[in-house]
């Protein structure tokens, strides 16, 4: 498994890692910065991670995916720092013999990442900023 916190997401690197002659299917999810959120224009996002713990939690999720599906390879890469609208902030991916497992595992990886991995998104609008999800 390729599990990393990076400054800049590299899709080609993720695909290169996942692709293998024993796999017939690769599924990749890329999360990107939207220019609107809650009806307001987003200027930028800034991501902050508790890196050592984030890597551990991502590793646990990847292991859980391997227990649920028969997978060749798994990728989880999250960016930190300032990201502008359109830019990639996260990649999850899985390769497998058949496509169903790759799709299901890739979706599981991003769903779980959002629940437990200690990374925080600071959303900047023109006139204010919020830590996403912080308040009920």
């Amino acid at each position, binding site marked *: 498994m390729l599990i990393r916190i990076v400054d800049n997401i590299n899709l080609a690197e993720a695909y290169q890692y996942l692709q293998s002659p024993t796999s017939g299917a690769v599924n990749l999810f890329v999360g990107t910065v939207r220019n609107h959120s809650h009806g307001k224009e987003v200027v930028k996002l800034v991501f902050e991670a508790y890196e*050592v713990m984030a890597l551990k939690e991502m590793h646990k999720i990847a292991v859980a995916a391997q227990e649920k599906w028969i997978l060749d390879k798994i990728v989880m890469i999250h960016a930190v720092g300032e990201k502008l609208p359109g830019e990639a902030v996260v990649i999850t991916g899985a390769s497998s013999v058949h496509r169903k497992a790759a799709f299901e595992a890739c979706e599981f990886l991003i769903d779980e990442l959002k629940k437990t*991995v200690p990374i925080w998104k*600071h959303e900047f609008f023109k006139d204010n900023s919020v830590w996403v999800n*912080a308040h009920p």
Partner: protein
Amino acid sequence: MELKLFGVAKDIIGSNKLSITAEDFATVGELKQWLSQQYPKLQQLRSVAVAVNSEYAEDNQSLQNAYEIALIPPVSGG
């Protein structure tokens, strides 16, 4: 010992770390209680977890053997 602070917790407490004496708190729950009294705005958050040695910790967990403690406000990666 240093309590690591992230995200909105860092903004509320006004620093990315806080010096604490782990021996003052028998458990994670006691530390959380003390923090929410010192920084009432923490009570307004959707959730606050504590990580001990970079693993999520239950409230009844001891802080003995803790070499790294962090406050984990609601995560929002992805």
